[in-house]
């Protein structure tokens, strides 16, 4: 389980990254993250929606209500150009943290 702070920091890059696979709706986004993380990333599911709406306000993503194959309506989210740009920046930042930690842990394997 991630800490509250890490969940808050990682939700936006996770959503942006999952949406690079193509448009998707909230429930499926959560499923995808759970599946890829092997169940290690568990969100309070309802909390995703205010984040999605904030991202929409920031023009990172756009949304559309459409009828799904089940006959019910779902709100689909899609990446926008601004979102792709934001993802590139997020990626660089996360990679630098990741690389630094990896180097440190390689240097001092006993500490982990």
């Amino acid at each position, binding site marked *: 389980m991630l800490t509250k702070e890490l969940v808050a920091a990682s939700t936006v890059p996770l959503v942006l990254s999952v949406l690079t696979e193509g448009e998707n709706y909230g429930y499926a986004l959560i*499923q995808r993250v759970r599946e890829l993380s092997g169940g290690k990333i568990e969100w*309070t599911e*309802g909390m995703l929606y205010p984040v999605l709406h904030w991202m929409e306000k920031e023009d990172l993503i756009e949304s559309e209500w459409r009828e799904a194959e089940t006959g*019910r309506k779902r*709100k689909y989210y899609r990446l926008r150009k601004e979102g792709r740009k934001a993802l590139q920046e997020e990626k660089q930042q996360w990679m630098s943290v990741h690389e630094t930690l990896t180097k440190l842990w390689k240097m001092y394997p006993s500490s982990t």
Partner: protein
Amino acid sequence: MENVSQFDLNASLGLWLERLVQSPHFRNENVAEMESHVRDSVTKLQSHGLSEEESFLIAIRRVGSVGKLEPEFAKVNRSSRNLILHGVILSFFSVGCWILWALLLVPRIFEKISSDPPPLPAFTRLLIGCRDFLGVPPLLALVYCLYVFIKKSDVRPSWKRFLAATVGAILLLAFPIIVAVLLYFVE
């Protein structure tokens, strides 16, 4: 074993959603999206062999408590501009009404300082007598603003409507008052 109490998904979901509907922090669209989410979640959990009731209970548990979600939705749904503009218009309207009220004092003041004051025309006297009622329109406007404040943000009426109504009211009030004051000085 037979099911003793029949579980009704639509009824239980409706009851749960009602709490979101009642909250001013969830837009109607948010409620629809949460419903869609819970239904998807229930369908998925049922496909793993859980009963409809079990699936529903787990689904809403995973969504999180309404109390915890509320502040997050409130943050993103806050459209402060519309509310601020309502407040600004209310202030201007109140000041406008106060100016009209003060305007009605002018003939009275003039009457006091002049040595040989002409009598007040009947119409002027009537309006001066009623001038304290000018407190009523700002009060009504305040009540309206409070009503707007508790409305859901996606059905909240626009400030433009309020502006049109208050400007109309000021003009309607100003016309007879200006006539009454001028009438005194013309005579």
